[in-house]
């Protein structure tokens, strides 16, 4: 009896071990390096939460090609040097793809490493320079500035009909890239840049900047700052009675900025690349799921993280194997529609540089909410 029991236990243990070993083999390593602390914590945590939500959905449905996704999340501390160190750590384990970072300065450092290792990198950075460095393994999840700035420039030229504009920008890779592209677009349209004001990351007091802005007396003000700085700037602009239209990109019209700025965000206008307020049912359903799971309203970085995972899933299923090189070849020039992959939420196309093209929106802050007033078509469909 004892011997029978022992044999049964041995067999069961063997089956268990074999089962465990089998389960361990059926995973695919796709780590994320994200801004979980420091100045980029809001962006990084949104990206992470959207990404993990997509991963859970995919894993529950059986994974990718029968493999469960294994995604440890490493903190870059919003620092380019730490991003590089964290990436080196995950590269040693031979990942299939890498998610993140979100901060452009960190992406510019890591993308050369992933290119050398031939590992696709799915990033949240928007600086134009990212895809202009011949980095063939970097793929965006949102517009690069070279795509978003012409849309804003058209809006300022055609709708606002401004003859002069003031630019307020944050002095980092993101802000500098946006400022450079924006001023170029203004010059192309014959609009005078009356004031060019750089601000610091984490700046709290904008009174001096707004004083300079008032002195410029421009027809419109383009604001290109991170979330919290945007809110503080808007408060100061309202206090000092800036009358010119305040125009921005996705960040300025985000719900977080609206909440932090209170009434000071009212009337702000601009171009929105990604938003949970988009008049698209799939996006709104995603936003509701996100809110139910995390108990906060997702910003555009959450959408980047979520759609980035489904982008990887779709391309991988198309190539039928976990091969970074084949992934990069297939992904350049690919178009994914929500009919083919519902998790992509909106039709998206990646060009030969890894830049993304999809519909975008013109928005305005009305009654404390972002209101989408117009949907702009994909650039490739114009």
């Amino acid at each position, binding site marked *: 009896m004892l011997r029978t029991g022992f044999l049964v236990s041995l067999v069961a243990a063997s089956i268990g071990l074999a089962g465990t070993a089998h389960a361990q083999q059926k995973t695919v390593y796709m780590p994320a390096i994200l801004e979980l602390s420091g100045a980029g*914590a809001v962006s990084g945590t949104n990206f992470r939460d959207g990404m993990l939500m997509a991963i859970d959905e995919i894993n529950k449905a059986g994974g990718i090609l029968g493999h469960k996704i294994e995604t440890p999340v490493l903190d870059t501390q919003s620092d380019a040097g730490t991003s590089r160190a964290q990436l080196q750590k995950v590269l040693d384990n031979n990942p299939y793809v890498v998610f993140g970072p979100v901060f452009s300065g960190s992406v510019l450092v890591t993308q050369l490493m992933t290119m050398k290792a031939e590992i696709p990198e799915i990033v949240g950075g928007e600086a134009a320079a990212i895809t202009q460095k011949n980095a063939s393994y970097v793929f965006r999840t949102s517009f690069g500035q070279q795509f978003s700035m012409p849309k804003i420039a058209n809006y300022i030229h055609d709708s606002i009909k401004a003859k002069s504009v003031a630019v307020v920008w944050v002095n980092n890779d993101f802000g500098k890239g946006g400022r450079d592209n924006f001023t170029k677009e203004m010059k192309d349209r014959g609009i005078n840049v009356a004031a060019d004001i750089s601000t610091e990351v984490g700046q709290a*007091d904008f009174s*001096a*900047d707004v004083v300079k802005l008032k002195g410029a007396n421009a027809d419109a003000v383009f604001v290109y700052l991170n*979330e*919290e700085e945007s809110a503080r700037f808007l408060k100061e602009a309202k206090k000092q009675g800036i009358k010119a239209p305040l125009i921005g990109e996705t960040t300025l019209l985000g719900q*977080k900025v609206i*909440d932090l700025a209170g009434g000071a965000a009212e009337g702000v206008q601009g171009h929105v690349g990604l938003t949970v307020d988009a008049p698209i049912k799939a996006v709104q359903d995603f936003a509701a799921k996100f809110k139910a799971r995390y108990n906060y309203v997702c910003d555009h970085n959450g959408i980047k993280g979520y759609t980035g995972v489904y982008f990887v899933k779709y391309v991988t299923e198309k190539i039928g194997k976990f091969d970074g090189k084949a992934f990069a070849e297939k992904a350049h020039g690919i178009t994914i529609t929500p009919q083919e992959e519902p998790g992509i939420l909106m039709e998206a196309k990646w060009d030969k540089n890894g830049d993304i093209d999809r519909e975008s929106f013109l928005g305005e802050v009305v009654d404390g909410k972002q209101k989408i007033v117009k949907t702009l078509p994909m650039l490739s469909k114009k």
Partner: protein
Amino acid sequence: MASFIQLMVSGLATGAIYALIAIGFTLLWQTSQTINFAQGEFVMLPAFFVLAAMNMGAPYWLAALIGIALSVVILGVLFKAVIVDPMIRHGVLPLVITTIALSLFLKESVKDFYSSQAQPFPALVAPRDLHFLGAVVSLQSIVVLAVAVATVIGLHLLLNKTRLGRCMQATAQNPTVARILGIPVGRMVLYTFLINGALVAIASLLISPIYLAKFTNGEALGMAAFIAAIIGGFNQVRGAILGGIILGVLDNLSAAYLSSSYRGAFPLVILIAVILFRPQGLLGRVEERAV
């Protein structure tokens, strides 16, 4: 002129808050040789005490009192008992390193247990703008300035016009003689930690509506206050006040009239100049300690 007035009021308000934080630096240094590199995080934390109390249903005034009380207990009593007392026996440097570790711990704890996102924080007064000689000055800036000045005056009266204050001064100047004279030196040192706990809580209530409550707020505030204390004189409360005011005003004026790109560099230039030409600070005294 209108722009100048606006910049001055805004700079004075920010500078007054820097001064409150810098005073804490000088008080702790004077009485216990503590250089607290977590001082910025000490200012960040009370805002979250207040927000947590408000989330539990407390009205703002009660939440503010709870925030100050918790700050005095945790950042005053506990800080001294758990961090300073055991470490100071090993010298100033180990304590400095411990406070750097404490700053990281506080920052990451707030991020993990509250939120990584900036939180709106209620102002002491409803948002309202005052028009003065063509300048638009927010009532909030005026109130911040008034509360900070009142706090400094109160502290000055406590230190110079009461027996308790004179005992604290004696402790700071010469603890051995103070002990011989019957002054309970240990208790006097504890009082300075309690005062610092209250000062950082008041600074937190004043600055969080402007900065928004966020776990990273302490980095910039701590550095600004530390620079202010050195510029003014690390061994003089009035020096810390002057240093804070100079820093706040200079930041605004330099950004408006010189260069916004280099605004972060100007305080450091002043700091270098002070260290080179008057190392004891503008109002500091050489080798003398007093509060």
